[in-house]
């Protein structure tokens, strides 16, 4: 009889209409921004640089090896190496990035930079609410804007962060063991290294003071 299939369709729609008042299954909208979907742990959006401890500049794990710059498919990372060295996350003296910019209008969130980084220095953030009113400088995140603490990393990706911390602790133990296992060589090398590290420490000291002025800018850029 004509109209049979149409009637079946009508009952289906009516079921959805009345069901939407009764069951959650039939009304799947989440009213953003009042309600938010809880973050799925693995999700990724744009990269950020991890730093250990309280000082974002001194604690940054990145050693400016420029591997992520080379491997990035759309070439959105711009790194300039520093001239001096500072101790990295496991204690070895390494270069650090004087300039580390990511252009998030080019970045395609592919996560290859994270995969190839040997130092667990760059990880994926989950922030997507990043509107800005300046389409050039607002979307070019510099080193300061990219730096986020290890505690933040634990908040957004707890499993990953714990694994990274365990690996780094192991590395640190190995480096410390190596340093302790060769005391005479280390003592002789530590003497010229100590003034060097003292020099970097003093040169690092004015940096947080200089960095404190960009901090308010970071606040309203967010």
């Amino acid at each position, binding site marked *: 009889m004509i109209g049979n*299939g149409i009637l079946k*369709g009508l009952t*289906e729609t009516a079921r959805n209409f009345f069901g939407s008042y009764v069951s959650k299954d039939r009304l799947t909208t989440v009213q953003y921004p009042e309600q938010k979907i809880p973050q799925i*742990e*693995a999700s990724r959006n744009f990269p950020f640089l991890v730093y250990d401890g309280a000082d974002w500049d001194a604690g940054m794990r990145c050693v400016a090896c420029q591997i992520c710059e080379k*491997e990035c*498919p759309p070439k959105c990372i711009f790194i300039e190496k520093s001239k001096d060295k500072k101790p990295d996350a496991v204690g070895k003296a390494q270069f650090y990035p004087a300039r580390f910019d990511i252009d998030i209008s080019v970045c395609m969130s592919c996560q*290859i930079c994270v995969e190839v980084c040997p130092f667990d220095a760059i990880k994926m953030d989950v922030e997507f609410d990043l509107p800005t009113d300046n389409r050039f400088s607002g979307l070019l995140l510099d080193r300061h804007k990219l730096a986020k603490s290890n505690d933040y990393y634990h908040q957004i990706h707890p499993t990953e962060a714990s694994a990274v911390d365990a690996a780094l602790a192991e590395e640190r133990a190995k480096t410390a063991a190596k340093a302790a296992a060769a005391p005479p060589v280390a003592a002789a090398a530590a003497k010229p290294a100590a003034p060097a590290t003292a020099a970097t420490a003093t040169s690092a000291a004015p940096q947080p003071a200089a960095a404190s002025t960009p901090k308010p800018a970071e606040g309203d850029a967010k």
Partner: protein
Amino acid sequence: MSTLTLPTPLTTSPEPGHEERLLEVSMGPQHPSTHGVFRMNVVLDGERVVRLKPVFGYLHRNHEKIAENETYLGSMPYTDRLDYICSLTNNWGYALAVEQLAGITVPERAEYLRVITAELTRLLNHACLLGFLLQDMGASGTPLMYAFREREKILDLFEALTGARMMCNYMRFGGCRVDTPAGWLDQARKVVADFPKFLDEFEKLLVSNEILMERTQGVGVLSRELAIASAISGPMARASGLNYDIRKVDNYGIYSRFSFRVPLGSHGDVYDRYMIRFLEMRESLKILNEALRDIPAGPIIDPKSKPRGFRPKPGEHYGRIEAPKGELGFYLISDGSPNPYRYRVRPPSLINLTVLEDLCLGHNVADVVVILGSVDIVLGEVDR
């Protein structure tokens, strides 16, 4: 093989003054139903189509040229963006081509994960297509919303596994990038168990709907001979009666372990294409049930592979998979350097589009939209 007769487009006017009666309409590139920036120059006689010329290229992004300057791994995120609603099958096609070129083997668990994600992607794509086909026919979004409601569940699964909903970048040469997080397999089993309910609802809503049948049966008929001659692949070919499913023909991956059937249509019209995709979804659910049950523990990537410094030995290879839209192939020429010498994508959407004129001749303008919807194109793939 029988002789192939194609319907002839009107190239010269049959009678004086007839040309003036013809109306040339450009449907697109901005159009609600052309599935992207796609343009069709349609010449109409009243409401009937007498000529149709597809114009594409509005989304050309130099994918193949960019690949020549990128490493092999660097091209992987770009393959996500080819057929942007089925990123995981694109990834697999590329990974398969490179692995076959370089002779890399893939561990068991990774193969199972690949099959699971590929079949989930097939479910996604077909649900999306059914929703859009009905939206184009004017069902004002209701079936589309139901289909997308199911899609959301699968996209959540992808986000938990790969980190992103659509641009997954998950396959690597030798396996997968990351293993499943805790509870993912159970979540996937739940989604697969809930899916048949949606299919039954959809069936009730639309399969016996008279209006749908009237609009799709007998419309856009693709004969078997024309399908073979034009290299049509995927559900479109199977709806015309062509028994060609690359999962069965090539037996790539571990598909030989799963028992699934290949549905075939007999008329080759829009209704058949729609129903074939519907039945394929049911077959995919069978594969998923088996794979989720049998997935072993183990490594997910070949231990010898490393993310940097990949240089396959010189040679060429064409690797292909059964993507939800058809045969997705990657042709690679390697000259021993980290970048491919030539990288070519065989896009199923583009090859399936070449017969659009033959399908649409003699039909109404309203049918053109429906026929285009049944070909299932994504402009990212057509234009690359």
